[in-house]
């Protein structure tokens, strides 16, 4: 394997932003409804449990990546051999493309519902993808920079949420732990799939300077998103009644509807537009990972596969038209994400440690 030149690598602390920005995607706007359906006002406990789960998986991932120059493709090859490993690589390529598709389509739906019902989906996607291509074409360092801005720039939204405080009732959380363990675990499952995206580190790990040093930044990134999720959960639960939560599709945005400033009457539009900044690195990183894995498997030049993948997805997106289809798209992505992150990765970890032990003995 050819080694990666130093100027194409990213600093370890950038991992913090990449991880956080992939975790805060379109799911961030909608997760309260699903978790409230499962565990009502107790769902905030699930946020904490789900946060811990992400840390565990991240720990496993870094253990797997400990070997020099390891990434998902090399791990697959070690565990499954060349052909089967290649097949699994391709499955991951599909997964990343699916993620890219879901994130883009759900964002477009958001724009359609909240701002422009008559938006031309194809044109919007086309121009959005031109931007994405421009970023991905410039390499991982640019994507890292985008991630940085996608976290730092919208950070002010955290304070905007405080405007809802006069309309909140924090006693809603009592009595704490009024739901069964089963219900809370169900909510945890719903949440773990909202918080996925960090598994991309398996692919771009070789591009990090002093890989293992980035470990703490990755964990910080996870902690940061857990706290952000917890913050919005607590605020939205104090703001909405349980029934309201179960009916509101985008609670995070609906909360912003109450914000009124002297110079701007409605804030959710700013929120929707800001969300574009948040999802750009999200989409870019999925695309980059998919094309990188393709390159490692079938030796297609990354630039070519990026164009190819974008073209295919550009054709698929306008075919998904109704809320129901988008919702289903989301659901399947959640299911696949859950299987990959919480079943497949631990399994891979076990297999890899067995393989490594056997090799050592030989």
């Amino acid at each position, binding site marked *: 394997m050819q080694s990666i030149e130093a100027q194409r690598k990213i600093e370890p602390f950038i991992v913090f932003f990449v991880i956080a920005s992939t975790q805060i995607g379109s799911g961030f706007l909608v997760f309260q409804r699903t978790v409230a359906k499962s565990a009502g006002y107790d769902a905030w406990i699930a946020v904490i449990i789900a946060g811990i789960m992400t840390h565990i998986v991240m720990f496993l991932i870094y253990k797997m990546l400990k070997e020099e120059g390891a990434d998902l493709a090399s791990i697959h090859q070690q565990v499954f051999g060349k052909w089967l490993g290649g097949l699994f690589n391709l499955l991951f390529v599909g997964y990343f493309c699916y993620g890219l598709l879901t994130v883009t389509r759900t964002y477009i739906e958001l724009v359609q519902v909240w701002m*422009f019902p008559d938006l031309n989906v194809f044109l919007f996607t086309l*121009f959005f993808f031109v931007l994405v291509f421009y970023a991905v074409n410039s390499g991982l360092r640019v994507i890292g920079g985008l991630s940085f801005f996608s976290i730092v720039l919208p950070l002010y939204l955290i304070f905007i949420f405080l405007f809802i405080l006069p309309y909140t009732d924090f006693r809603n959380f009592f009595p704490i732990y009024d739901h069964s363990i089963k219900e809370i675990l169900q909510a945890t499952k719903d949440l773990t799939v909202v918080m996925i995206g960090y598994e991309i580190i398996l692919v771009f790990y070789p591009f990090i300077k002093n890989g293992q040093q980035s470990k703490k930044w990755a964990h910080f990134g996870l902690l940061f998103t857990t706290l952000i999720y917890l913050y919005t959960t607590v605020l939205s639960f104090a703001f909405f*009644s349980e029934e309201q939560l179960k009916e509101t599709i985008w609670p995070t945005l*609906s909360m912003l509807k*109450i914000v009124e400033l002297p110079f701007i009457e409605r804030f959710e539009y700013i929120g929707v537009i800001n969300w574009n900044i948040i999802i750009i690195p999200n989409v870019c990183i999925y695309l980059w990972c998919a094309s990188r894995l393709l390159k490692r498997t079938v030796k297609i030049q990354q630039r070519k596969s990026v164009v190819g993948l974008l073209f295919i997805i550009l054709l698929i997106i306008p075919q998904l038209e109704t809320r129901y289809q988008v919702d289903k798209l989301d659901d399947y992505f959640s299911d696949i994400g859950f299987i990959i992150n919480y079943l497949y990765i631990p399994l891979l970890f076990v297999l890899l440690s067995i393989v490594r032990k056997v090799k050592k003995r030989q």
Partner: protein
Amino acid sequence: MKKYILLFLCLILSGCVNKSIIDEVDIERGVGYDEASDNKIRGTILLSKYNEDGTTENVTMTVVDETSVNILSRLQRQSDSTIVYGSLKLVIFSEAIAKKDLIEISDAFVRDARLGSRMYFVISEGSAQKVLKGEYGDHGNATFISDALDHNIKHGDVPKTNLHLFVYDYTQKGRTAYLPIIKKLNQQRIDISAIGLLDRQGHLVDKVSVKDMFYLKLLVDKYSGGSQVVKLDGDRATIRSIHSKNKIKISKRNPLEMSINIKVEGIIQEYRGKKLTQKKIEQFEKKFAEEINQNTTKLIKRFQQLGIDPAGLGHNAKQQTRNFDFKKWDDEYKDLTVHVKTDVTILESGVVQ
């Protein structure tokens, strides 16, 4: 070359969405619903036309239809410019509508992403159309009425309300909603005449008059502002509440009993009588507390008889009970004993003795 591509892109992109130029659209600021014959609804919308000299002209349009959503589309046909409704401030329901279809109509306002959740829902005594047809203030009727509600919520006796809180109260188990009731006095003035109480189905069942509004607000809301006259052996003091809190607790189980602790901090605004000594102030505190106890207890009894719960006793009981059973609560609520305990502190008595 790059420049031309950019220019080209701008041209295509600007064609992507509909534009609305503010001078060329009608801005809907208020809407009112009245009952019409054959189970239909008479909808009136209030448009604000902003004139060049800075004044606002009120234009109303009325149409009768079966559903509230059709009303706007029918009015669109009668108007020469598009009616936009993103800055809708005020929705008025006549009493007859409030007794029947308020919740069905309100669905459209909750569902639409264009509408803010700070708009006011109010009930009108008499026809909503008539209220919208007045000429209040210089900034348009909707602004006038919503400003009147605004400052009465902040400084007066009207409990906090808006679209979000209404839906919150209506959907929260163990709580029922309330809405302010307004009355048109004459062509230039309106009055907030009562608070309408809605039952769990969202139908108007009772009204709390101006006299009791103060006590209602103590029960349902964090309260500040508003004043009340207290009489004590021929002396009279006007006490202005500046801060209040209520705590609703389960004081005893089997059979269930609840207690409401109200804490009021106030100042004496006006006093008529002999010298105002510390002892006198303490007597006034006690008398005021007693009056609050009596009147709030009366209100709660009234709520219990009607099976409504604007104070959220059920919601509070749920917060203090594991595996709370709302069915059982519904049976218990009617005969529930509620103790009200009030603690009044008079902080200041003005700049003279």
